[in-house]
């Protein structure tokens, strides 16, 4: 199951720098490993994480085979207005996961 966890502060002051932590459950199979019979295990990784804040893209990350399983990606942004943060992960084998978190700016 595509499980993701996101931690966004529920409330922030206008102009405050807020930390956003995202965790996606994913094996991040590199594509370089082999089975005991010598067969290549096909690559299966998350390719991108995109975060938008009230429809405006504020963060984008490209992921690569050297990144560990269950990647934790942390970034910061400035709290400008109340609304929603949308997160979308996409990857190999049609992997897709989404999450949205509300934020109240006072």
């Amino acid at each position, binding site marked *: *199951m595509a*499980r993701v*966890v*996101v*931690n966004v502060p529920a409330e922030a002051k206008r102009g405050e720098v807020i930390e956003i*932590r*995202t*965790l996606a*459950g994913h*094996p*991040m199979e590199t594509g370089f490993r082999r089975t005991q019979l010598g067969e290549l295990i096909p690559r299966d990784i998350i390719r991108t994480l995109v975060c938008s804040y009230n429809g405006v893209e504020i963060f984008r990350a490209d992921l690569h085979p050297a990144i*560990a*399983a*269950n990647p*934790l990606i942390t970034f910061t942004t400035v709290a400008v207005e109340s609304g929603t943060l949308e997160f979308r992960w996409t990857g190999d084998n049609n992997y897709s996961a989404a999450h949205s978190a509300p934020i109240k700016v006072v």
Partner: protein
Amino acid sequence: MRSAVFAVLLCPFVVCAQIPLEERRSGYEFMSRETRAMQDDDITGPAVLWLLDGEALWGKLGCAGCHGDAKASMRGVAVRYPALVDAKLVSLEQQVRHKAPQLPYESRELLALTAYVAHQSKGMPIAVQPIQPHVDAGKAFFHRRQGQLNLACSQCHDDNWGRKLAGNAIPQAHPTGYPIYRLEWQTMGSLGRRLRNCLTGMRAEQYALGSTEFVELELYLMWRARGMKLESPGVRP
């Protein structure tokens, strides 16, 4: 005389002294700051993914039908296992799957459910009973030289803890955080899987997950760690 001197020189390495209770340290204390931070992160730590799955399975598999809310009913359960159930020694995993035997050992579902159950006892002192003859059998296993390297568990974990093995700190082998999220595995795993790792390193005879030998060893390790706080689910390097 000469052999006596030899014995004295080698003393710190050959005596099979048990670690005094007050000198016991959890594997957590041997970890780097970054790895500790992973374990301490209750919201976005990697083990959270398993805890959430375990909570969902608790309802889906019908555990709640008998046991109700795990937060109340499972508090203090994990610190008592392995324990006797119907006169048979069983590990926490085995007890967790008593009504769900379709879940194989090391399956994501069983690990998630076990982690969820164990998590309810986080912070409680380990309180297993020293059940005879199982605890003695486990102790004998721990002190028995075995494998092509002719090593006993105690030679590393009692006699040489805190030193390095292949660049890694040797911990005291207290099972305080199982099931653990192990960085080397990139996933969650049971104490049984960890024991198999050690036996592989010792090039010793392997035992099946859930075998009597492992559950007895698990009991001895938990007895050895009695009173220490449960950290489940832990993160280990």
